[in-house]
């Protein structure tokens, strides 16, 4: 284990139970996140790209501790996030900030911005006057006027709400911020403002980000490393420029094509067994139909594809 590792996700599985009351007597289990491992170094940004339903949000929720893993571990600076208790747990939670999807829905409409922003501090038992001072400071940092504190979410535009949501994540002085689709509900000009702002914040506070998005060009703008996720697992991971220049996995190729907006027609249907990407792939062999591909390490990159198993 290297010293600079900030977060390690080791062999993580998160299962949801599908309950069919009448048809199945035994409820089935489906993995939303399956066999995910990666290491995030300090000051680094990892972009997690994938389609809807690929398990990106579940992964983030598990890292932040909202969901419990079914198997595997999330280790923050050598301490398991889910096994920590008491003061240690509080310390870890303060150092991991989380910006949920859709700021308009994650902020309570009945709470003033001041109470929303200071809520994480309340959980940490920080005195009321301190909380207010820190809220004032953090709003200044994110570029919002102080008056915003007395307003309600309905009074603000969506771009401002996103800044408030980021302020709420930054108020506990975190080292790692998890961003769940920070720009998907924004217009282009607001998206550019928020992306530049996130970059600025990273430099000011020396933050690490895990950025979850479905837009590979947004991910490539902020991240040094990219992880492509599909069907609950990371199919390809590596330095952003290498992944973009020479994608190894067929799904990565499709995502890059989609962002260049070539006309795409093929459908991504789930295969019953074996590799789920058979329909996309031109190099499929009989092995691909039978078994799930293993993880193969090529230099700084990791890919799940049978094609590279001999190299």
């Amino acid at each position, binding site marked *: 284990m290297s010293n600079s590792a900030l977060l390690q996700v080791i062999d993580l599985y998160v299962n949801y139970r599908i309950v069919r009351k009448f048809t199945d007597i035994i409820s089935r289990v489906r993995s939303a996140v399956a066999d995910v491992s990666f290491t995030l170094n300090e000051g680094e940004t990892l972009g997690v790209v*994938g*389609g*809807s*339903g690929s398990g990106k949000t579940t992964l983030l929720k598990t890292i932040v501790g909202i969901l419990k893993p079914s198997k595997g571990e999330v280790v923050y600076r050598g301490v398991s996030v889910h096994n920590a208790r008491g003061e240690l747990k509080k310390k870890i939670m303060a150092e991991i900030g989380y910006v949920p999807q859709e700021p308009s829905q994650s902020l309570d409409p009945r709470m003033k911005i001041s109470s929303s922003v200071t809520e994480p501090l309340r959980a940490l038992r920080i005195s009321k006057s301190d909380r207010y001072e820190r809220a004032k400071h953090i709003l200044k940092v994110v570029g919002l006027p102080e008056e915003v504190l007395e307003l309600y979410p309905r009074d603000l*535009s*969506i*771009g401002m709400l996103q800044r408030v949501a980021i302020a709420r994540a930054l108020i506990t002085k975190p080292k790692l911020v998890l961003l769940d689709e920070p720009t998907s509900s924004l*217009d*282009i*000009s*607001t*998206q*550019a*403002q928020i*992306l*530049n702002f996130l*970059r600025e914040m990273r430099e000011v506070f020396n933050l690490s980000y895990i950025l979850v998005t*479905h*837009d*590979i*060009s*947004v991910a*490539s*703008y902020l991240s040094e490393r990219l992880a492509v996720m599909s069907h609950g697992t990371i199919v390809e991971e590596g330095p*952003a*420029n290498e992944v*973009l*220049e020479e994608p190894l996995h067929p799904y990565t190729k*499709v*995502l*890059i*094509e*989609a*962002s*260049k*907006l*070539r*006309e*795409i*027609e093929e*459908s*991504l249907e789930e295969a019953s067994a074996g590799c789920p990407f058979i329909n996309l792939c031109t190099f499929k062999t009989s092995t691909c139909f039978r078994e799930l591909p293993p993880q193969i390490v090529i230099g700084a990159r990791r890919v799940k594809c049978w094609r590279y198993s001999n190299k």
Partner: protein
Amino acid sequence: MVLEASIKSIDLSIGYEYDYGVLWVVNSVNIVVWRNTTYCIIGESGCGKSTLGNAMAGLLPTYAYTNGYLEVEGRIVVRGDETNYNGVRGRIVTRIPQDPSSALNPYVTIGEQLVKVIKHHYGVRENPLEKAGKLLKLVKLPLEVIDYYPHELSGGMKQRAAIALALAPMPKVIVADEPTSSLDAYLRGVVASLLKRVQRELNLTLVFITHDIALASTICDYITVMYAGTIVEEGASDKVLHNPLHPYTQLLFKAIPKLGSRETLSTIPGSPPSPTSYPEGCRFRPRCPVGFSECYKAPKLIEVEPQHKVSCWRYA
């Protein structure tokens, strides 16, 4: 090919009641949409693009105020404060909704919904069920979907079903109001390609409303850029995309992150004005980096080169 106008508007304004007055969210819009082409309306949220789309599709609320003139496939639908969409809705123009899950009836199977629409417009003479099957084939859905309820379909499949439903009355014009905004990047491309293919195969006029410029660039023949209820730039898509003239369009294009590029994105200072407080003169003036004294007067849409119009005093 002779270009014929499918949708034509002259000084069209649409507004809603606000504080004892009328708040005009779409202001004096003059557009011509040619038949069998794809026409994109680009703009940020709140610029009036959906209201304009609803006016074309006949889905304006009854409390909306209108002014000016709008014609769809030769039928006058708006003249002054009168609107008349009888016989236009459905047979001539339909709309593809933004969020398919809220547009499909959750209690009724896809097949039943399709058959209901076909029966309503064409009766039972031509076997409606067979027609429903053909529509599903057209949007590349498997035939089993006919017996599925909306909740059994994925997001992309739901949007395909919604497209089939919009095609069911065999319209001549389709207004697609942000059909891809609830989908991820991959499905976005797939659905946009599907719409383009359907438009070509069935010789439809497609009005595509979006805030995604990259998507618009791949499927559109003509592009209109709206800002604060007015049209700031209009023209053939290659001209607008390769040579944007209005400062707003130029800045907007620079704000899109490019794949693999890590240069700082340029942003437009400030935020779009709300309809209650539109600035005087050119509505982009307070945010414009190249404005001058002339901008306190409202500019007109003028033709700078063939098939390229812009509303900016710098080109007057």
